[in-house]
């Protein structure tokens, strides 16, 4: 039973990191119907920027975090302006491909600036795990859980009730019609990319505190794809539930199935799960389907 509980807890905490990164995908999708495959690189950049501020410039963590979020927002804005804006009317697959190009480009820049060595954060979150009976949780994971729940609440309210939230959804639905409402697609995109980059930076800082920062961290961008799809591309709660679901399944598969098949299921299980869920719900757990009327 403890084994089971520990697996469960482990799945939830890992899932909260997934959820956080998945949020970045959902935000972009909601405004532009596209997947941002450079999301992993945004995470990476956030991690590096904060690390650099702390270790090289000796800035205290919270201030460094604030600056990092700002820097990432600016990068998001820059990317939107130079890459995404010219593609405003392009088909979705082009936008996706552009973000793949972007991933390569940003990855290269990261290499130029920070090299290839793994760097580590100084101790920020307490290292001693929190123990509840036989269960253990590392504080970083606990924090990410808290953050992700807060963001869930914030974004849900934002999209439901704010003018900007409505504008974002309108733009995702029909850009031309949104423009005719006087909604500035530019502004909406800019805001979306800024927010998404900020969310990614938060993920990056947390991840960096877990296992150091290294260019391979960007892989998280691919790892969470099943999460995003499972929850439904356009659903904020979906990203969160998807994160936890995949986290838990991974952990359970790792705990109970791995010994039977000789290991390695952790990386595959999310995809198997996604295929099953999609067969039952073609738009993920919470995603809205395309509306087609003739």
């Amino acid at each position: 039973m403890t084994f089971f509980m520990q697996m469960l807890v482990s799945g939830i905490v890992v899932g909260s990191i997934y959820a956080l990164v998945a949020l970045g995908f959902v935000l972009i999708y909601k405004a532009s119907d596209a997947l941002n495959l450079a999301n992993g690189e945004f995470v990476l950049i956030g991690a590096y920027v904060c690390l650099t501020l702390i270790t090289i410039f000796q800035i205290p963590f919270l201030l460094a975090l604030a600056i990092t979020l700002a820097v990432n927002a600016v990068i998001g804005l820059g990317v939107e302006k130079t890459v995404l804006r010219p593609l405003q009317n392009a088909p979705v697959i082009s936008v996706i491909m552009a973000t793949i190009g972007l991933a390569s480009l940003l990855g290269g820049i990261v290499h130029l600036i920070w090299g290839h060595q793994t760097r580590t954060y100084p101790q920020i979150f307490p290292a001693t795990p929190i123990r509840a009976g036989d269960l253990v949780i590392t504080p970083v994971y606990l924090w990410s859980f808290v953050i992700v729940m807060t963001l869930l609440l914030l974004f849900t309210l934002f999209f439901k009730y704010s003018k900007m939230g409505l504008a974002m959804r309108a733009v995702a639905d029909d850009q031309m019609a949104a423009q005719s409402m006087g909604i500035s697609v530019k502004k909406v995109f800019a805001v979306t990319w800024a927010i998404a980059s900020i969310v990614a930076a938060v993920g990056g800082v947390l991840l960096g505190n877990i296992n150091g920062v290294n260019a391979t961290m960007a892989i998280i961008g691919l790892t969470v794809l099943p999460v995003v799809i499972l929850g439904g591309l356009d659903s904020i709660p979906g990203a969160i539930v998807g994160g936890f679901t995949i986290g838990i399944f991974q952990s359970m598969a790792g705990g109970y199935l791995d010994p039977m098949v000789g290991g390695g299921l952790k990386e595959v299980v999310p995809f198997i799960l996604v295929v099953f869920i999609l067969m039952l719900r073609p738009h993920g757990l919470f995603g809205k389907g395309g509306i087609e009327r003739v």
Partner: protein
Amino acid sequence: MRNPFVMECGNYKTKYNHDMALFTIPRVKMRMILLIALFALVPLFTSNYVVGLATLCLIASIGAIGLNILTGFTGQISIGVGAFLGVGGYTSAILTTSLGLSFWLAVPAAGLVTAFVGGIFGIPSLRLKGLYLAIATLAAQVIILFVISRWDGLTGGTSGMVLQRPSIGGYTLMSASSYYYLCLVILLFTTIFSLNLFRTRTGRAFMAVRDQDVAAQIMGINLFNYKVIAFAISSFFVGIAGALMGHYTMIVSPELYSIDVSIQYLAMILVGGLGSILGAILGAFFITLMPVGLSYFTEVLSVFLPNAGHQLAAIQEIAFGAVIILFLIFEPGGLAHIWSNIRNYFKLWPFTY
């Protein structure tokens, strides 16, 4: 002979099958033959190095045409090409190395097996659309590779399998140019087949599914069948490409078929031009040769920045990303569109505008 490079302006067709011919004008046909001849001559006046690169391009072209059939023409985004190349490669490896079948049977068989596997993974396409389907194909990639790396008995697991170059009556196609010719012929076949396909019933149905699937249904198109067929025929060519690649590098291993490969193929058809056979070929050449071009470029750069050797690798990465982005922004129609612009320009030349 009339100059085949001068374009026609006005020409009138009196029969439908003339209007519908692949190469509508005799000169165009002439030009195609010249082009093919040019390709056939490549090994005679270039180095092994060029022939080797060209072979990679030809193989990639076959795979890219395959992917374009599915993604460009039928509108089903696939991020799983890598794994299907793997299925092709492994099938051929198993058939030739483990079962001792001849290359000449194994490669078509590899195509068929891949078509079958592709068809199976195409089944979800009935319910899944767009990005959801795309991720399902990514799932296919992950699952297929997992199976390959675990089915030790059949596939040799993570350490892969070795293959041999084909031979005809005792003569092994070991030299660079002999394998090049083989690939050239297969590419030619692939090209003609797909060009024909898209001017006849089945190909049109594919495009109808892409443009408007509800209306396609009302035209009497069985969406399920056609989507699965599209997956199958696309995978067939991808499988052939995988088998050819396997026999070229003489090895298959799971790590050869990572998601990076899938992304490269997507880049090929996007840079080349979605929904264009010519585009797939141009894109395959472009993406295959770009790193080569970049490394020449970096060699030049390293004259000025002698100690920056390692930095240049990152610069290559940046350049790759930049090229893709620039293409998408400035030439969304891809290389095929650039090509047709050039052609149109010459068609009217010297009376442009």
